[in-house]
């Protein structure tokens, strides 16, 4: 299945979609968005790229083994929950920086947690898609 239109369009769309997914992730705390949908957008972007250019090229473009994305996502989410233990608060208590950060407003462990969800969802979807597309 090769389509010139898709192949050309996705080259432009891929960075845009990835950027959009980051945008969804970062604004998620205040506006519609979040890690889950952001991760799905990443997966959709790479899935379209892979449809157009084949599984090997898709994997090369992702650069990371999707299985590692799944594992690191879970790890990041877990670490964000473990951090409060260091200051003596219960597991998964949200910690917030007192200084407002640019773009995202307040920074805190929930964002880190959402990043974990983002990585895991993207990795999981791509793991299945790549495995199915292998010939």
């Amino acid at each position: 299945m090769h389509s010139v239109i898709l192949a050309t369009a996705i080259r432009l769309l891929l960075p845009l979609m990835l950027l959009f997914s980051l945008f969804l992730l970062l604004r998620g705390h205040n506006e519609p968005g979040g890690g889950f949908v952001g991760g799905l957008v990443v997966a959709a972007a790479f899935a379209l790229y892979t449809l157009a250019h084949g599984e090997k090229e898709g994997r090369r473009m992702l650069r990371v083994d999707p299985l590692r994305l799944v594992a690191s996502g879970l790890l990041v989410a877990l670490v964000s929950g473990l951090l409060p233990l260091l200051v003596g608060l219960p597991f998964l208590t949200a910690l917030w920086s007192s200084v407002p950060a640019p773009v995202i407003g307040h920074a805190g462990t929930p964002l880190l947690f959402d990043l974990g969800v983002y990585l895991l969802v993207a990795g999981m979807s791509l793991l299945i898609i790549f495995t199915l597309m292998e010939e």
Partner: protein
Amino acid sequence: MRIAALLSIPCGLFIWFALQIGAVADGQVLQSSLAWLPTLGITLSLRLDGLGLLFALLISGIGALVLLYASSYLHDDPHLDRFYAFILAFMAAMLGTVLAGDLITLFVFWELTSLCSFVLIGFDYQSQASRKAALQALLVTGAGGLALLGGIILLGQVAGSLELTTILASGEQVRNHALYLPMLLLVLAGAFTKSAQFPFQFWLPNAMAAPTPVSAYLHSATMVKLGVFLLARFSPVLGGSDSWFVCLTGIGGITLLLGAVRAITCSDLKQILAWTTVSALGMLTLLLGLGTPLAISAAMLLLTVHALYKSALFLAAGAVDHGAGSRDINRLGGLAGTMPQVALASGLAALSMAGVVPLAGFIAKELFYEATLQAPTAATLLTLVAFLGNGLTVTAALLTGWLPFYGMLKDDTLHPHPVDLRLWLPPLLPAALGLLIGLFPGPAGRLLMAPAAAQVAGSPLPLSLGLWHGFSPVLLLSLATLGAGLALFSLRRPLLARLQPSQPSAGWDTERLYDWLLIGLPRLALGITLRLQSGRLRYYLMTVTGVAVALMALNLMTSSNDDLQLPRPDGSLHEWLTALVILAGALFATITRSRLAAVASLGVVGYGVALVYILFGAPDLAMTQFCIETLSIILFVLVLHKLPHFALLSSTASRLRDLVVALGVGTVMTWLVWRAISQPLVPSLSTWFLEQSLPAGHGRNVVNVILVDFRALDTLGEITVLAVAALGVYAMLKPRSGGEGSD
């Protein structure tokens, strides 16, 4: 030397415990506790009282002897280090159990002793018999442990506390409670499995597959007495009722006779000793069942005396095995010449076991007879049982303490040689202690037995032990017992020869039931699994949805449906149109003849649902739904071209059945939603989230704040499930595409 360092542990403990004798004999109870799970009221609590101290001294003292003994007995075993580790872990678990001041602490250590017993019985893991015996011991005592847990929880609920001190004081309240009988039976199941009482007696002789030091330590002196310990521990709370009396004296009596009879039919020294242990445990259970002050004193003395003589006999049997190469009494004989110290130890221990003046066993037997003669009910029957059991025990004592050491060596192929100090000193010490207690019973009784008996009875008991009780029916009984035992010993051979033909089948045994269960349970499980795990996705789906929907329907039908109101058909035109699109998509998916069309129409359904989300103000959900639908269609397309041509393979009947299931699911779900919206909404939760989102969660998107902050633990669980599911898919698809060695 390493063994010296290791020995310092039990020896140090023994000395520390010995130093506490004075304080404990004065009636003090040493306690210490550490909050473990404070929210559940569970503490890690230790308590040293008379009963615990008696056990602790036996455990640490005999433990030290067994360590010393094992260093010689197993000196060429490649896994000697492992053995030390296991036996010390076991010692810790035992001490924890007898010193526990809290029911949960008690239970945890109790289970640890079962686990240690498992690894120690299976120490020779290359032998199939060892592995089988280890598993059997674990399953039997483990099942008892579960029952005990149930009993402990009930006891804690009824007494209102898990602290032993509180529970021991609430005996009246527990015995009058409606749940007293189930509680008692559960605790008894735990005690009886551990102490190898009928019908669980079979695991103990099989456990003799363990190395001899283990048999001496776990399966005679300490662990099997834990059941008796448990009965003694809870005797002030659970004891004194009719059911307690009937269960304990009945089961104890049966076990006592069964063990004693089986003992004298065996020819392996360890088997004889194992069955006499079963018999002695029966005696202890019977005495605790009687529950009179006399019986409790007798039980405490018998327990100590039995631990001393039985560990001595076991260790001596191991020394004989080591020095002569056999444990078969039909082959051994005349060993007193080559190993005089072992013969002395065995002789002393056997005399104590037979209850001969002036050894401690004699006093224990006298007290036993006194207790049965003065029993409140069925005194004659109990005394008869005691007489038979004791007589058979005398015979068994002669078999183990006399036969191997005197007379002529019966098998010329054996070449006995002397054994070293580490093999003869450990049996000699407890045997000699039996003599010492017999000669000076006063101090031992006052310092050790009386405080222990006071704990069991719940109040101080007048206990004075003496060797000489004057001419009484008890003394006559003792003499008659010795006579009967001697007579049986001389008649044993012809009797056994007569019984021989029926011997191989050995008649009916409760072990058959165990074997039957062991074979039957996996078969049952296999049958159920084959039925449930058909391997066909459609049946799984049908089972899961069918059961869920049936349960919901049952619930909906039994609850009141009065407040159900037919919702008024309001809504604007575009809402109706969206609903129509969803319905049309679903209908088309079921009737189309093209696979691609089916996938596309499912996509229509999905997008329609996403539209509904938008219409009712859930942009997050809608966005996620759109992404999911898109990805699903991509996945479908990827799979589709690998599938064979679309064809109608199922029969009309099965399609009709699917239709019924599908419509059933739809109906019940509609019903459920209808019910849900007819109820007045509980506003507190959603309002709380809305109000707290910005101040507490620092975010205006409530959905996201809930996901990553308020209910983050749920999300963590969900993404873990996602990760596992991804791994599952990966593992399922990988073998097909693997083989290129790309990973």
